[in-house]
């Protein structure tokens, strides 16, 4: 059953989402009535990217690197300190509150934890139907809210008969499907998926990932897929943005990042991905980063990664490396000493596998 007729937007070449120099600072304040700012947490600092239609951009990085904040900035849950977000070429900051509310229909979010993102006191019908209460114009003509909820449930693989049940009566994967149906209701162009499968069992993860990819293909959706799980990212992403402490480390297409990574941080992340072959796992290089993620309230000077980087030299703490193109088209890296290094599944690694496959 088709919920919506998917329109062929693929021919349009303009990016559906364009982010320029996005930044978010959180003030650290003291006092209740008379707030005094005593510091700043720089959660996101100067992130720029473009998202072509019907494609998926993955944002990866370790906990606290600001990747979820980027997602929240995009759906308008937070106000950016600096920078612009263009949806379909329209700068969201220039819109009136009313126009912004209408524009929000185009960009929806699926949250990480399906156990807390659904109101425990609402039925599934109320949860999936709420988008139509807020945006009555989103309801297709001649269709009731009830019918739409049923179609949406069916589309995400839930039995519409369960519409009167409460979230706690569903399993984690089913709840995440409810969350996806809610995000899908307004027929957005972009869905921000904030670690949508990291709270789920691995077997359920695959089902939900398949659902997300099916929906992308059916409705021409574009995803911003925030995740720390590189194997999940590799499954879905067309482009990958690696963040470290609020800044862009490296951005490129999926093969560019996974097979031709040039930033030391990207390489360290990739080296931590488990490899199924025990022999290969033992033999391959492993990069272990020393220390913890520095506090974003007092980030290191210039290149924020220099405190943990094995390549760091004096210049890294003096001059901020700007994103530059080193290898292919659209592959940007922010590092003074960027150089290609194969971490997984290329050259030697891939060759090994190929040999073993043919006894």
């Amino acid at each position: 059953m088709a919920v919506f007729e998917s329109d062929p937007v693929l021919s349009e070449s303009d990016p559906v989402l364009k982010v320029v120099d996005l930044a978010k600072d959180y003030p650290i304040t003291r006092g209740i009535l008379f707030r005094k700012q005593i510091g700043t947490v720089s959660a996101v600092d100067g992130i720029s990217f473009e998202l072509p239609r019907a494609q998926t951009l993955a944002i990866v990085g370790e906990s606290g690197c600001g990747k979820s904040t980027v997602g929240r900035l995009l759906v308008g849950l937070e106000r950016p300190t600096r920078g612009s977000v263009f949806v379909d070429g329209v700068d969201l900051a220039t819109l009136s509150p009313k126009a912004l509310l209408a524009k929000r229909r185009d960009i929806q979010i699926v949250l990480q934890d399906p156990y807390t993102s659904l109101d425990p006191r609402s039925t599934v019908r109320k949860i999936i139907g709420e988008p139509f209460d807020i945006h009555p114009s989103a309801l297709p003509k001649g269709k009731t809210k009830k019918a739409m909820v049923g179609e949406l449930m069916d589309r995400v693989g839930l039995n519409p008969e369960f519409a009167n049940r409460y979230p706690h009566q569903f399993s984690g994967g089913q709840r995440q499907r409810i969350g996806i149906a809610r995000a899908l209701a307004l027929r957005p162009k972009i869905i921000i998926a904030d670690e949508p499968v990291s709270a789920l069992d691995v077997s359920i993860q695959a089902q939900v990932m398949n659902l997300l990819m099916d929906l992308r293909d059916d409705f021409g959706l574009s995803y911003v897929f925030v995740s720390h799980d590189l194997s999940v990212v590799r499954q879905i992403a067309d482009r990958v943005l690696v963040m470290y402490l609020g800044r862009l480390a490296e951005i490129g297409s999926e093969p560019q990042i996974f097979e031709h990574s040039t930033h030391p941080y990207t390489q360290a992340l990739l080296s931590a991905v488990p490899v199924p072959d025990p022999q290969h796992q033992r033999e391959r290089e492993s990069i272990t980063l020393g220390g913890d993620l520095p506090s974003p309230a007092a980030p290191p000077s210039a290149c924020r990664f220099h405190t943990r980087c094995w390549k760091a030299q004096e210049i890294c703490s003096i001059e901020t490396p700007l994103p530059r193109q080193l290898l292919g088209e659209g592959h940007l890296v922010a590092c003074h000493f960027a150089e290609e290094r194969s971490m997984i599944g290329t050259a030697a690694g891939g060759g090994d596998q190929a040999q073993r496959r043919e006894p």
Partner: protein
Amino acid sequence: MSEFFSGRRETEALTDGEPVTDQLLDQVGEDAERDSQALADQVRRQEAEAAASEQLPVSGARPRSLLGDAWYELRHRPIFWVSSVVIVAVLAIAIFPNAFADVDETSSLTGGCNFDNYLQPPSSQFWFGTDQLGCDVYSLTIFGARPSLAVGLIASLLTVALGSAIGVIAGFYGGWIDAVLSRIVDIFFGLPLLLGGIVVLTAISFPSIWGVVFVLVVLGWVSAARLVRSTTIEAKGQDYVMAARALGASNSRIMWRHVLPNAIGPSIVVAVIGLGVYIGAEATFSYLGLGLQDPDFSWGTMISSAQEVFFQAPWTLLFPAGFLTLTILAFILMGDAVSEALDPKRQK
């Protein structure tokens, strides 16, 4: 855009339940990928059907609305049943007193009270005896239930309504609104109920039960407000509130549709327990001569007038006091049961 898709991994193998990571290095050729597309689609369809037809456990199928949830917990509790029997009985008496006694017996104006029957002990004619005006204590007790309960019900309803509204606003908006409202709450919290009530009721005269209700609401809303403020702060930080905000929901929608239903549980408990407390408070004010005034009477005024003759005729005090105590106890036990039923930590 095809250049981006060329590197994409298909996931058909994942549906077999293998860990995602196992697939990372699987270098599937593009041709093989295309060949397996049909198979993948089939697997996905089957999987969607499986997910759709997945049966939910019937035993766990129970409602999760605030009231449905509470009812499920409550009906398995003996204390709930004992207290509800008492409460239903008292409510029946309060609503239909004429079914239990004759109103004429309560007033000397209608000739029902007779000085000849001055302080008669309980007998077959006067079940609870008579008071110093020769009125039937049983009839007085029956007709005294309505004002007592009315004060308790109205006062606790208004208390929770006012307190919840202010608590939700303070907790939801935070900042200076919260700071101002919380200081007001602190000021009212500092006013002693009894002293404040005596001052107000002495200074202003109200008709019927409204003086006592006014005092109880004005001095009593703060505890509900404090409670709802803290539960609101907890609820507004939940992900489902963020999800509603991302959909574009207005503040008032979030506040009334999502935060309040999840924040009001504890204040319902306060209301039920408060009901008993307010009935007692009404009796206290009436005992002090500040509550109901003649010709209105309640259990409180009866206890008040009985104190003069307690040693001669203890029944004049014991019967209304017994009804009062039993009613308060029933409401407090009910409050306890409701409180446990609504406790989110007990929810599975």
